[in-house]
Every structure is written in structure tokens, then in C-alpha cells.
């Protein structure tokens, strides 16, 4: 599965954990791509994180296990930290051959939730950096209730991240 779709899975977990703020960071240096998703949701216990990594259903679905498999198969690894009542963070490291996918297409899936949950996406590579913050949609892109604004965000994120990640 492309990195952008793992990102959808991780953001979904954060939303289901009642996060008010979700920070996604993607970086690409040398031989490694790193995907990090952190939230201020309800968090969970170490036992539940382990269960989710094994692919047991509760409480984080199968997405975390898939992410772990994908990271490890590419030569990378995964680190998850979580504390009940405080939040969760996931950092997955991938080998450089893992496809990025269309990050803009993946990001706009959460458009209806952005007025409730702040989503910040940052990317940094050897080619430059980019930040998207859902609180600034009206200011930077246009009326959030218009679907054309969603399309504008999708286009910019797809275009910019493809360039930053060297056309992956």
C-alpha cells in the first residue's frame, strides 16, 4: 500500500481516538522516508498498542499492523508511543523505494472533519519543505464549504509533495 494510504489509516485512528489536533510529518533523506502521525487523542495502554501491532482488532484496527509490516518489509521499522488521556504518536521509517502515492488525494478525505479536528501536514526533504494547516484553508485557498477549494488543496499538495519527494 502506498504511504499516502497508510497516512489515511493513521489519521483515521487519531480521529477515532477523539483527537482535536493531528500532526502529520513526512520526510525523505538519503535512503529513508519517515512518516510520523501524532495526536492529542485519548491515547491507549502499552498492552493495547502491542495488540494492535499484532493485528488484533481492538482498539486500533488492522492498520497499525499493516504499517508495521510495510515498514519492516522495506527495511525500516516502527515506533509507537501512547499514554492514556494524553495522546498517541506513530513513527514509521521506510526504505526509499516505498511509493508515496497522491498525498493530496488522501488528505482531502478528511475535509468534512477539518472544522472539528485540526490537521497539520508538514513535509521536509532535501528538495525543500511544505506545510498545510487546516485552520488556514479559508485564508490561503478559499471558502472551505466550496468543493472547488478542496480540489485546489488536493492539487497543491499532490504537486508539491511529488516534487519534494523527487517524483516518487
Amino acid at each position, binding site marked *: 500500500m502506498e504511504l*499516502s*494510504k497508510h497516512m489515511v489509516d493513521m489519521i*483515521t485512528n487519531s480521529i*477515532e481516538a477523539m483527537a482535536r489536533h493531528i500532526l502529520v510529518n513526512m520526510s525523505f533523506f538519503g535512503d529513508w522516508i519517515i512518516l510520523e502521525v501524532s495526536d492529542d487523542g485519548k491515547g491507549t495502554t502499552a498492552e493495547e498498542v502491542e495488540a494492535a501491532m499484532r493485528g488484533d482488532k481492538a482498539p486500533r484496527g488492522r492498520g497499525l499492523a499493516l504499517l508495521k509490516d510495510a515498514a519492516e518489509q522495506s527495511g525500516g521499522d516502527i515506533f509507537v508511543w501512547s499514554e492514556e488521556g494524553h495522546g498517541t504518536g506513530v513513527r514509521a521509517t521506510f526504505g526509499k523505494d516505498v511509493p508515496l502515492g*497522491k498525498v493530496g*488525494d488522501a488528505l482531502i478525505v478528511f*475535509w*468534512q472533519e477539518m472544522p472539528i479536528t485540526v490537521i497539520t501536514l508538514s513535509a521536509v526533504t532535501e528538495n525543500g519543505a511544505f506545510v498545510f494547516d487546516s485552520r488556514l484553508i479559508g485564508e490561503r485557498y478559499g471558502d472551505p464549504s466550496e*468543493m472547488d477549494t478542496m*480540489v485546489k488543496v488536493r492539487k497543491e499538495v499532490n504537486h508539491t509533495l511529488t516534487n519534494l519527494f523527487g517524483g516518487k
Partner: protein
Amino acid sequence: MKSIADINAIREQMRSKVLIRDNTKEGETHVFVGMGTVGLEAGAVEVFNAFVDEITSREIKNVRISRSGALGAADKQPYVEVVLPGKAPVAYGNLTADKVKVIVDKHVLGGEPVTDYIVK
């Protein structure tokens, strides 16, 4: 019997879904795209974006497209529910971008569900 803590936990889990569903305005068609892990693997993001493309390129108004939690059986992914104003939800399965085009033509614009794609 469930404890108060259990009930609160269930309420919290449902909150995000309820917020989205309550968001539908009067007279608006709402398309829900299931985004469980199986749906993602099967192409739910592509189907979501195919709806966005069809709706915006034809300048169709009063349609909202939302992510939903996991919807439908694993072998029916990508799975979508289309809710026209005042109508019961219609569930479609195994969708592709081509099928989305037909659903927008016949169901969203024409008001007639596409029986060939409905999940039985």
C-alpha cells in the same frame, strides 16, 4: 450489562461519525465512502476522489462527500452509501471510477439508483 464507562466509551467512538452525519444540510445529497483498512487497500481513496472529480467538473451543487468509518463487507470494497434528500441510503459495493460516473449520472443527478451496483 454495560457500565457507565463502557457506555461513555461507545459514545466517544460514535461521536465523529455522528458529527459527520449531522452535518448534512437540508436538500443536500450526501455520499459516504467507507475508509476502513480493507476499503483503503481496495481503492476507497480513488473512489472518493472520483466522486469529487465528477461533482466538481460538472459543477453539481448540493452534494457533500464524506469519509466514513469501515462500511460493508470486506469483499464489497470499496463501499459507498448515497443518501438523496428524504430518501433511504443506497449502498454500492466494489466501486471503481467508471462506476462512480454512472452513479453520479443516474442516481445523484437522475434520482434513480443503479441497481447493478447495489449491494444485495
